[in-house]
């Protein structure tokens, strides 16, 4: 068997491979379930946003106070 014949046979057999439709259906269902995430993951992300928000407000207040000190009465 030449390399060319071998590769041709390999391609022929592997290209006939199919994914069963029930596997695809379960895959879509599980992937959609993962997409919405769990309650714990939502709580983590909510906490990160809250902390980022507080930090941003604190930085803003600090900037205003600094401005007033430099340019204020």
């Amino acid at each position, binding site marked *: *068997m030449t*390399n060319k*014949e*071998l*590769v041709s*046979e*390999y*391609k022929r*057999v*592997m*290209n*006939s*491979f*199919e*994914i*069963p439709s029930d*596997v*695809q259906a*379960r*895959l*879509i269902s*599980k*992937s*959609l379930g*993962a*997409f*919405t*995430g769990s309650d714990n*993951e*939502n709580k983590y*992300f*909510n906490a*990160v*946003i809250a902390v*980022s928000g507080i930090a*941003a407000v604190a930085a803003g207040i600090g900037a205003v106070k600094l401005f007033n000190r430099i340019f204020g009465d």
Partner: protein
Amino acid sequence: MDGFEVITIEKRKTQSIGDTEQRYVELAVERHSKMLFRICFSLLNNYDDAEDALQDTFIRLMTKAPQFRDDEHEKAWLIRVATNICKNMLRFNRRRSSLSLDEIREVGISESDTEIFDAITALPPKYKIVMDLHYIEGYTASEISQIIGVNADAVRKRLQNGRNKLKAELENLNYDE
């Protein structure tokens, strides 16, 4: 993780599944599931394990939500994740299962091709993955090296060794095309 990224993922996580999300999942499955299932199936030699690996791969796609440059980038990422998941599964389960005729039939392989399919799945995983990516997906050795993280010379060597081993196995079986 910057604020914008977190907010983006947060929005996705708390929204109920809408048409856009459903369509994204369906498109990703349509584009990549056959290729990934074939890779997982041939690496793991087990129908159920292959399905588990495939599902884990897509769950990581949905939960990590990486930003892709283009479709090819997405495909390469999925292949890398799937092969790593399969490698980990093989590490914890070293025994090789034989595929049943039913399992082989379920994935569209005809009975007359069982011998050659068995010989292909009997190859070491490191040969199977490069052969699949090169001969079926059309990647060059250089592209494969980027995907699986070995240098291009090693990829070429694995292709050669894979061909030689498969040829020897088929000659032992007196395989006629």
